[in-house]
């Protein structure tokens, strides 16, 4: 049994109910899908007992067709040399999630950026304020799929062709 499978096994035995899916994706990559209400406990378990200590990134993905937002915490274990993606899906209409700031201190700016770009409210985060966008920004969260750029390249292209006298 490889180290990756051991990790999966221990998570599954500890939280049998709350793991939706856990699998080894390839060498050094582990993916764990969990229910959003238990993400804090699973995060603590990953940090304390499995040694996933080095936060790599927090990212969001907007699945607009399923009306869901996915939040992915990617954590590297320095001793085990495994990258775990701790992922959870939350409804798009009411995106709230418990912040993991007390588990990994390094998520401070990552969560703030995800809040700003996807509108996901992290409960317990000390400072959810504008990070990259201008302070007077009042549009929707820009990385959601329903935020359209003022002019997509395709439209521009068609307009250009029209201006050039048709194709």
């Amino acid at each position: 049994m490889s180290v990756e499978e051991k990790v999966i096994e221990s998570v599954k035995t500890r939280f049998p109910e709350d793991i939706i899916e856990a699998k080894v994706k390839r060498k050094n990559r582990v993916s764990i899908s969990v229910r959003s209400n238990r993400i804090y406990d699973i995060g603590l378990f990953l940090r304390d007992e499995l040694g996933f200590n080095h936060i790599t990134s927090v990212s969001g993905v907007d699945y607009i067709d399923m009306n869901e937002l996915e939040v992915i915490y990617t954590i590297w274990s320095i001793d085990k040399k495994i990258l775990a993606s701790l992922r959870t899906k939350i409804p798009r209409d009411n995106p709230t999630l418990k912040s993991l700031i007390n588990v990994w201190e390094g998520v401070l700016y990552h969560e703030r950026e995800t809040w700003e770009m996807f509108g996901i409210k992290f409960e317990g985060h000390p400072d959810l304020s504008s990070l990259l966008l201008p302070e007077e920004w009042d549009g929707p969260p820009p990385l959601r799929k329903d935020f359209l750029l003022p002019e997509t390249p395709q439209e521009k292209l068609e307009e250009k062709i029209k201006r050039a006298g048709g194709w």
Partner: protein
Amino acid sequence: MSVMKLSMGPQHPITGHFRFILDVDGDLVLKLEPDIGYTHRGIEKLAEKRTYLQNLPVIERVNSYCDSAGTMLGYLEAIEELMGLEVPERAKYLRVIAAELNRIASHLYAACLFSVATGLETMLMWPINDRELVLDLLEKLTGQRITYTYQTIGGVRFDMPEGFKEEALKRLDYLEKRTEDYYKMLLWNHTFHMRTKKVGILKPSDAIKLGVVGPNLRASGVKVDVRKDEPYEVYDKFDFSIPTGKNGDSYDRLEVRFKEVEQSINILRQALKDIPKGPIKKWAPPIVPKGEAYTRVEAARGEFGYYIVADGTMKPYRLKMSPPSFRNLIALPHLCKNVPLGDIPVIYISLDLIPMDVDR
């Protein structure tokens, strides 16, 4: 005693495109709050509107003036993982050569910024001059000086020009000798020791907890390097070591970078010696199959992570970049608590943050 709010930047000689809001009491900085986003270009959103191929020039501008070759490798790794594409051996070597040359250029740039922060302008010019040698080599190889668009999906675009190998080896020898002068002028300079030793000490436990990466993490004594941990391209074929620091102060962070330049020269010598003959590019389809991949590469400033969600079209559904400077940024307010005002530039520059990399 009253606390004064001091706004440092974005129009300030040292901060670049950052703004720091400092709480200053006399000459003591109680708290630093970074204000970023002055160079935010929304590359993650732009990438969703462009095809995988069109993204190449856009993505390398995340880290444009220092390390575009090393930065782009991760994106290509992710796409090739999704496609299941095996890149020709010679192309892998050429990618490594470009990335390592770029690492040398980037670290020399870091050294010159560091000496500006301490007020020594001579060491601004010397590494910049010698960086020119490396940039000239890269221009010979790729056709550009800073943004190369050299590596592409399935390989590299140009082969090594004639006489490149000899010229490169000659210049690497020169650079290795030239480093002695840097040590004499900067690193062994007693005044420089006074300014940088025991300034901004980042403990290993704190560094891991905050998620600091790259030379900054290694300077704290934690031996983490993606090139060794999960070798990408052909890094598993080279014999090189990972330099680490002892104290984790500003001085160590610079010294680790200098030692990394030596290791890069070492890698380049091996790569130029062992490079096999063969094709340099493999045809790649424009459509990437459905799936997702997270890849990491060791760029000059540290680990660069790419998370790509592909939905089976020509364009990525989601591209997440996790650049090293953004992850190192959190160490800045952590280190700048109750330090003299004069140490702020030193600590800031020692972390080697570049605003474009932070903002994307």
